[in-house]
């Protein structure tokens, strides 16, 4: 992001006076070269550059390699590493209990596309205000290389054995599940990932990011369709992206007429540079068509795939107050003595 117009306080601090170090976590225990590490770096950079207070962030995850990563960024944020496939419901509870939290869910393709597929879909139906990242590598890493539900049929595992079950396309599933912000990135494309993450943080509702994240240990071989080589060779970008924050002077590199601006609810803008086709992310049908086309060709479409600006998040729909629910005590929550008397009277 280029925001040269923003006055920079010192070389290293963001607008709330924190350095990038303040957004780091413990040293990663992922394998060297793992795509997940790039995503962790992207996440902490996005929060740092936007100047979001880490105290405001709740890091939620399930089980698997990806779900371990929240320990490796934003050490000053509360984290909750829940059980396998259940991150979305636990995140929903936290998001409702305290609307001020920025809920960041980190999951994997095992966690979300198999055991947690129901929770993933239903959190989209509820439109819980959260950023939902799937670090997608097509394999179960922690249990040593079994196929996940996003592995393409016919792709091989690290023993060379082919996958006999068809793959799920998560963005496609997200769109038909009612998700209003659906994007796909690639851990090897940091610029695009960062823009998508920043927009996701600003979205009012569930922002779904399917990020291709090659597993260097179990799924980075010639028979895989989730390897670095494969994704690099088959990545079809819908557009080049920049994210322009609210009140930031627009000063990005796209030429007039070659871009499409997508406004977020708070005035921030996703600027999408057209590539060879005129892609409209507000069209559900076009989005599904492009995904299906790519799926059939075993290509990986990246970018902001679908966006519905009329998104009302769950807490808003439930008319929740702005204050966290734990701030209320008996005075606000316990009905009066008269109410009890009246209640009892109706049961006489």
């Amino acid at each position: 992001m280029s925001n040269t117009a923003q006055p920079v306080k010192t070389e290293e601090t963001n607008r709330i006076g924190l350095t990038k170090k303040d957004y780091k976590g413990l040293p990663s225990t992922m394998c060297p070269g793992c795509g997940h590490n790039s995503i962790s770096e992207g996440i902490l950079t996005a929060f740092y550059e936007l100047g979001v207070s880490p105290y405001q962030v709740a890091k939620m995850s399930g089980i698997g390699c990806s779900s371990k990563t929240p320990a490796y960024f934003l050490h000053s944020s509360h984290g909750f590493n829940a059980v396998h496939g259940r991150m979305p419901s636990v995140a929903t509870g936290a998001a409702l209990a305290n609307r001020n939290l920025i809920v960041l869910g980190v999951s994997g393709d095992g966690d979300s596309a198999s055991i947690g597929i129901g929770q993933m879909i239903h959190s989209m139906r509820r439109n819980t205000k959260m950023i939902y990242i799937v670090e997608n590598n097509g394999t179960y890493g922690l249990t040593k290389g079994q196929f996940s539900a996003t592995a393409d049929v016919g792709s091989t595992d690290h023993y060379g054995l082919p996958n006999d079950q068809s793959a799920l396309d998560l963005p496609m599933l997200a769109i038909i599940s009612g998700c209003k912000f659906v994007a796909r990135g690639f851990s090897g494309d940091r610029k695009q990932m960062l823009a998508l993450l920043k927009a996701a943080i600003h979205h009012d509702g569930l922002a779904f990011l399917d990020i291709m994240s090659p597993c260097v240990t179990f799924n980075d071989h010639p028979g895989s369709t989730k390897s670095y080589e494969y994704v690099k060779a088959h990545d079809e970008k819908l557009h080049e992206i920049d994210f322009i924050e609210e009140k930031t002077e627009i000063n990005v590199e796209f030429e007039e007429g070659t871009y499409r601006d997508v406004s977020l609810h708070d005035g921030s803008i996703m600027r999408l540079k057209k590539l060879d086709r005129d892609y409209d992310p507000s069209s559900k049908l076009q989005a599904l068509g492009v995904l299906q086309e790519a799926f059939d060709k075993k290509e990986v479409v990246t970018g902001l795939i679908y966006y519905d600006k009329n998104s009302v998040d769950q807490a808003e729909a439930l008319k929740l107050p702005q204050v966290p629910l734990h701030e209320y005590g008996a005075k606000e929550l316990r009905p009066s003595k008269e109410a009890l008397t009246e209640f009892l009277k109706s049961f006489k």
Partner: protein
Amino acid sequence: MSQKQKIINNFSVRIATANGTGSQSANNTLFKALFRMGVCASAKNLFPSNIKGLPTWYQIRTSQKGYTAMNRGAEVNVLVNKDTYKKDYEESKENSVVIYDSNIMSESDFHRDDITHYPLPLTKLASTHFEKPRLRVLLKNIIYLGAICELFKLDQEVTEQVIKDSFSHKPKVVESNLSALRIGVDYVKQNIIKKDPYYYEKENDSKNKNKIVIEGNAACALGSVYGGCTVVGWYPITPSSSLAESFISYCEKYRVSQDGEHRYAIVQAEDEMASLGIVVGAGWAGARAMTATSGPGIALMTEITGLAYYAEVPVVIFDVQRVGPSTGLPTRTQQSDLTMIANLGHGDTKQIMLFPKCPKECFELSAQAFDIAEELQTPVFVISDLDLGMNQWPSDDFDYPLHPYNRGKVLRKEDLAEMDTFRRYFSGDESHGIPSRTLPGTDHPLASYFTRGSGHDEDARYTEDPDAYRRNMMRLLKKFQEAYRVLPKPVIEGNKKAKIGIIGVGSTYDAIREARDYLSEAGIKTKYLRPKSFPFHPEVKEFIDSCDKVLVVDLNRDAQLKELIQVNIPNSEPKLRSFAYSDGMPLSALYLTRKAKELLNV
């Protein structure tokens, strides 16, 4: 009329209808009218897992001695269901009264000499007086209510007032119901000569003055509202759905602020795992949260309960038990989730349980459950059952709770400002194993920690270190073992010197209380301990020690309560005798009395 001595307010009426025909409204009116007459009445709705057509029975017992347990068999049988009448008739008690719909049942089937028969042309009366087919079906029930009213001298004025109150917003419904009631009354007046000894009679008005009629589920829901619950995740399942639904309606009434803000969030989730997941997330973020379910739902919640136990997240879970295993008998009652819940979760897990016995305790213990969960930072199960949860019970008025909420050891920003370190899973010697927690969103550098279901040390760091693992597990054990300090104490009734003890939990109370009277009449003195919580207080051990024999009453096949006592109170086994019986029905006092004599060898 026969010269038999009158039997007043001391008999049972059993009404056999088909599900979905609207008989519930007539039956509830009968129950409410008796209640308002000051009569001690209790009601059991025996319904099928079905929307329309399958048989359903409603049994109302009146008792001069104030007994409220269900009797097997009834003195008066009202047969309206043509699919079941033959069997119902054959099984009717000796010398009982049978009222039947003579239009749809064959007179030749009613052959018993011992029975007093009252044939009523219910179907014809309904079709003569009402045009719309649906009204004919519905109001047939009110016609039999009118007949009951006249036959047994149920106060007609009171009954009419109950109808008026029930449909106060629908004058047309009141009108048609009142006319149906009078059709039944008039038919009996003109055509039937009373030959039975059963009568309802108004009691002293003050008798039920400080009482209400309510379902346990509604009481639990109201208790949750008063207890400060703000987040609910739930999934429909009989017999717990009405608990969540009552909570919704009470929140709409009591929790919407003047500017339209909802101080509650209720999510009907996709399944029980998500329901509890939502509750765990909310509890972790500081809101008081609950879910309501039944046995199959508890089974599904097992893994997340283990997480909440190990990560020490306060949550409240209502289990309105039904008959298992598996789908079992979804609309019948049982107390059969006790051993499952006591150790719910894989690995070494121990869970807190509360056992209300009546709607008033449902209200009180539900509210208290949220204090206990936050104080102990662990799941708290409120154990109800279908009988308590879904039947209408006469209950003492609820008392207004005055105590402030106990939010437990939550460190705010101001607290952290005074501290050098914050150690999430460390508790000092004086803390009964309970550590302090912080809530996400706390604006302080010491506040954050990483919650996880994996191995962790005092500072919430991931570890597989043997010592750290064991220290943590032993602290959790200490927290559990010392939890009784904040749990409601057992209630003990009867003479302290008695050497025969009885122990039972929850809704078996009514049958045990009655059975103890029968035992006493037979010269067998007993005392009775009713635990209101698990883990047990030291009083339970003291009670057993003070007895020669203790009968443990279980509404399940496998003596689950006895097992909990045996496992948790070492060396208690030799004194324990087990009454463990379940067929889906509430416990019968007469059967319990008979078996108790055998089992105690007295």
